[in-house]
């Protein structure tokens, strides 16, 4: 596990730092591409559960609020089928958007098969990307030889990949994602929905089961309502189940996020939290400045916490990794 602090003031610095962090997290390189790599992420649970991640400077720029170049992050299945590929999620590089910092530095939380990227303290488009292979219920895995559950279902998981940008809401700001690509076996959904169209990729909160406008508390008020224990006022902690529907009900829990949990508390980004002597930090902040509460988010404050291994800093003066024999890597 790596929590990388990466200099993103130049394309090369960004890609180089990310590359070092990815290798440290146990990713392997499938191949090099122009100004990038294709990585292979492998689940510690089952070596057959994998995905690929293309990280590349293709020269693309995005706008608004101003034109700036990006590094593309594109999640792929192992066969790199175009129909299963996410859109390229652009993450800005260069000192165009530093949000008051001396330079642009990004952080990436990397585990063997999961990534959460972000700009500390900021939730604005083209600053966050996330995805990977979730932990799968062993009873639902195709490769599990002896299942403990008495289950006669034929549906077994042999592939599961999820990814999201921050273009239309993401786990950076709540528990739903509006711009995402999800793959489960042969079922693929790729959407970039508006904020008021119900997106499907989400974490699963806990609340009373009334209509989605009727969570605990008064909907559309600004006061967040949170599940807490009476007396101690400690927020409820629960598993980070990741779920999506296939167009209709039900919302199927596909797995759990690695080294993560959910907490029903509104905190600022990167707030520390210690659980059973293990440090974590908050990835989500429920409300961003200028970001109106959404109908389906107001009733639940759900902060995603990631395990904190301590920050590893990657500066531009880091030695680049050895080039492969037929590299077309360009600095």
């Amino acid at each position, binding site marked *: 596990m790596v929590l990388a602090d990466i200099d993103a003031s130049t394309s090369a610095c960004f890609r180089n730092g990310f590359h070092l962090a990815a290798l440290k997290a146990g990713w392997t390189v499938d191949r090099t591409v122009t100004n990038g790599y294709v990585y292979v992420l492998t689940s510690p649970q089952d070596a057959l559960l994998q995905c690929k991640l293309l990280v590349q400077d293709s020269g693309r720029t995005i706008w608004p609020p101003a034109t700036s170049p990006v590094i593309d992050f594109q999640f792929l299945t192992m066969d790199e089928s175009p129909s299963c590929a996410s859109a390229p999620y652009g993450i800005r590089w260069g000192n165009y958007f530093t949000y008051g910092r001396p330079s642009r530095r990004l952080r990436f939380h990397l585990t063997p098969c999961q990534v959460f990227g972000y700009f500390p303290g900021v939730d604005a488009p083209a600053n966050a990307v996330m995805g990977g292979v979730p932990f799968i219920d062993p009873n639902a895995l195709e490769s599990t030889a002896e299942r403990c559950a008495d289950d006669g279902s034929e549906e077994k998981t042999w592939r599961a990949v999820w990814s999201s940008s921050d273009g239309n809401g993401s786990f950076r700001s709540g528990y739903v994602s509006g711009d995402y690509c999800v793959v489960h076996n042969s079922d693929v959904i790729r959407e970039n929905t508006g904020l008021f169209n119900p997106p499907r990729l*989400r974490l699963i909160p806990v609340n*009373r089961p009334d209509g989605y406008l009727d969570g605990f508390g008064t909907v559309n008020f600004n006061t967040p309502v949170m599940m807490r224990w009476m*007396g*101690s006022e400690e927020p*409820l902690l629960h*598993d980070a189940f990741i779920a999506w529907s296939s167009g209709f009900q039900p919302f199927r829990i596909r797995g759990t996020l690695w080294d993560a949990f959910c907490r029903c508390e509104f905190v600022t980004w990167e707030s520390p939290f210690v659980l059973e002597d293990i440090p974590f930090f908050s990835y989500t902040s429920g409300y961003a400045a200028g970001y109106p509460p959404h109908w*389906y*988010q107001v009733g639940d404050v759900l902060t995603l916490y990631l395990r904190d291994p301590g920050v590893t800093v990657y500066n531009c003066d880091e030695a680049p990794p050895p080039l492969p024999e037929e590299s077309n890597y360009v600095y």
Partner: protein
Amino acid sequence: MPAIEFYHPEEIHPSVARLVPNERTSAVRRSSTVSGLRGVLTLAGWTLDLGRSPKAQVSVSLHVPSLPVRSPEPPGGESDKLPGPLVCAQAPAIVVQRPGVPLPGRTWAWDQGRYKEPPCPHFPLGFTPGQTFEIFKGALAEALDMNIIRTLGLGDGVVQLDLEAKFAGPDPNGTQVAGWVGGTVWRGGWRMLSGEYRGWFIGLSFTEGPGTSGGLWDAWEFGARLHHGMEDLSGTQEVALRLALSGRWRKEATPPPPYSSIGIGAPPDPNANTGDWSWYRVCACPYQLAIWFDGASDTPAQTESAAPRSLFLGMPWAPEGFTGHNPFVFAANSILGVFRTQMTWPGYTQFDGKQWRENVVTVPCMRARHEGTVNSVDRVSNTQGAVLVENAYVCTEKNPSGYIGNHRLAGKLWNCAVLAQTYPCATVEADMLGGKWVHVSSHGWAADYSTLPGRGVLYGAQAASVWWKVESTSSAPPE
């Protein structure tokens, strides 16, 4: 990350589920409904508090100045008196009809000055109305086999007599008295004590209450107290709840006005579980009790909203070291709002032995929080479409704010779980996770959502239900 244990070791208490008859007819009496409930609670680990169990009572009144008095002796003495059997042909002064007894008991008033001693049960008239009254009182108490606990003048010569059974229990309930006075004996029952939890007990009394006409029973009456220690009742508060057809639960110190009577079915077949109105299903463990009409259908005539008669009383589990309360009890009813068909349960809560308050208890669940597919409800499942199971927590507030505000986790239902699916009321039980479970509540089940208007359908209500694990679900009522 700590594992979410489905069962806490303290939770392994046997729960029982039984059917008790909704039996209150004038036909041959079988087992008392109230005693049936007592039997279930005893099986579940509750203990009988005989010394405080309710004794049946009746109040009657009469206009004393109008009472007859003894006639003067005839000139010829006894030989001039009319035959005694003529007294027995008159209207009796006291008629006592006990449930299940074919013929009523009768007692006649004997005018000693006019008649020879009659061969039927009798009492003599006094020389004054007041004397007659005093003699009548004794005869009435003897006929009813009850004690007179109060004599109250109501003015203008009207006197009220309050009588109480000599022993606790429901057996005298439904006894009708007629003649010079009229009334029906009610409110005999039992008081049971729950298991001790965190040093506290629930004291639950349950009796049968009167109807509006004919002395028919139409309500169970429950009184629930949370108190500390076996003898310490000081400062405890009791919530008195009635469970009736069209009435409403309310917290009160004195019995409420009578409500309309219900239809009473024929004596039930103990082997049938057809959703007939003749049976209640009871689930109980040492700290929790639920009772409802067994298999109540979803037709308008028999939905909970039309015939609300259910109760969920519990003292939820809390983790060790929990400081939110010490402890709390809730009584969820089905008249302020049904609990069989939703998981937000209106009723009453009491914290730390203080005053009962009208409140809401909610059982939360995993949510999709989607706006919902039209004519459907949200469901959370896994990749195989399985019905997910999770803990049945309870959320509420100590100080009710009048709307469902920032609810707080206050505990967990004993031996219960939440399933991510809904079921009709007619679904009674299921086998899962190696045990037998009883269906308690489902949130917004409908056979056809396209026929239901409103937000719950169109805007993402969550499919979820509450189930209770029990040792068995025998349909035979306890002896």
